[in-house]
């Protein structure tokens, strides 16, 4: 019996094994993961965090952003752009100045907490309307549908659009991005980042605006 025979035997042994999960279930679960998820991003180690950050592109914003100084902040590390329909685009290219990004979002009227580290503010608590006991982050993510939409960033940054109209009155948003580890895959070093966004209870201590 040679390797080919063995390969054929193995294939025959599992030939009646079929994936029974419909694609619709997979994409629904993927939508949940997008709202609060782990991201493995690729890039050569030498090019740094900005080039290493890369996320999924889904849909382009529905309306072009207003580009006046009053409604758009442009920094090297991150960008906040507010559309006429109220949707706020956030793009993070480098893990710098989280306080500036947080202040910019709050100035746009969005209750927000931003950290570029593993530690979140102890004042922040995940938002679980109607559920006094914490549930899983997956359950929380499903409640975030319609608030967060991943968007494309041609420079390879973390990009998300936030629709404040869908934000519950007692909730704010939390961004948390931080480097996790470096792995080598197919001869290329890949930086692993944790890239999460989700809802938290709105409070002066966490999101900066009155609850």
């Amino acid at each position, binding site marked *: *019996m040679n*390797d080919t025979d*063995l*390969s054929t*035997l*193995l*294939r*025959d*042994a*599992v*030939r*009646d*094994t*079929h*994936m*029974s*999960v419909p*694609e619709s*279930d*997979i*994409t629904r*679960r*993927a*939508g*949940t*993961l*997008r709202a609060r*998820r*782990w*991201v*493995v*991003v*690729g890039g050569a180690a030498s090019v740094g965090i900005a080039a290493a950050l*890369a*996320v*999924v*592109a889904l849909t382009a914003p529905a309306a072009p952003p207003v580009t006046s100084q009053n409604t758009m902040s442009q920094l090297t590390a991150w960008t906040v752009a507010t559309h006429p329909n109220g949707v706020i685009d956030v793009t993070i290219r480098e893990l710098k100045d989280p306080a500036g990004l947080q202040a910019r979002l709050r100035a746009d009227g969005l209750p927000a907490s931003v950290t570029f580290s593993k530690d979140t503010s102890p004042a922040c608590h995940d938002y679980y309307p109607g559920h006094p006991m914490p549930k899983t982050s997956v359950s929380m993510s499903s409640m975030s549908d319609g608030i967060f939409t991943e968007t494309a960033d041609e420079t390879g940054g973390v990009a998300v659009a936030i629709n404040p109209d869908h934000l519950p009155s007692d909730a704010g948003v939390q961004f948390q991005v931080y480097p996790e580890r470096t792995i*080598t*895959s*197919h*001869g290329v070093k890949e930086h692993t980042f944790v890239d999460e966004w989700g809802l938290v209870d709105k409070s002066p201590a966490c999101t900066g605006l009155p609850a």
Partner: protein
Amino acid sequence: MTLDFADFYREAKDECLRTVVISTGDQEQAQDLVAEAFARACASWRQVSRHPNPKAWVVRTALNVRIDRWRIRRRELPLTPPMDTVMRDQDPADPAVIAAVRRLPERQRQVVALRLLLDLDTETTAETLGISPGTVKAHLSRAVAALREALDLKEQIS
């Protein structure tokens, strides 16, 4: 040309599932693991579609999810490792083959599944499992020898 996720899922789902079934020895669990891995692929499709081997990405993710779950479970209860779990076959064509594979150590099963079922080369298998190419060759050699012995013996008996 960018590969469409729906097309990828349709084309790769059974092959990935079969690879994980052989790797883990647990068909019921493999369905969940592969579904979760495909969901993660879909959530990060722009990046995964550019991976040199998206199927290997899915299988690696499925195996990692399994490790994560096992670690969580192990913290909660002193359960036996997953290599001892029962393979629940969907009427396999040759139960003797499945039984022979199940008797292999877990790492050998994974190497066999990736090399002989998913048709990955030695280097890609090594990258996928996070081991060296030399270790892949050694595991494959031992696994093939064990399977040949088991299946040749079965042929002689029958």
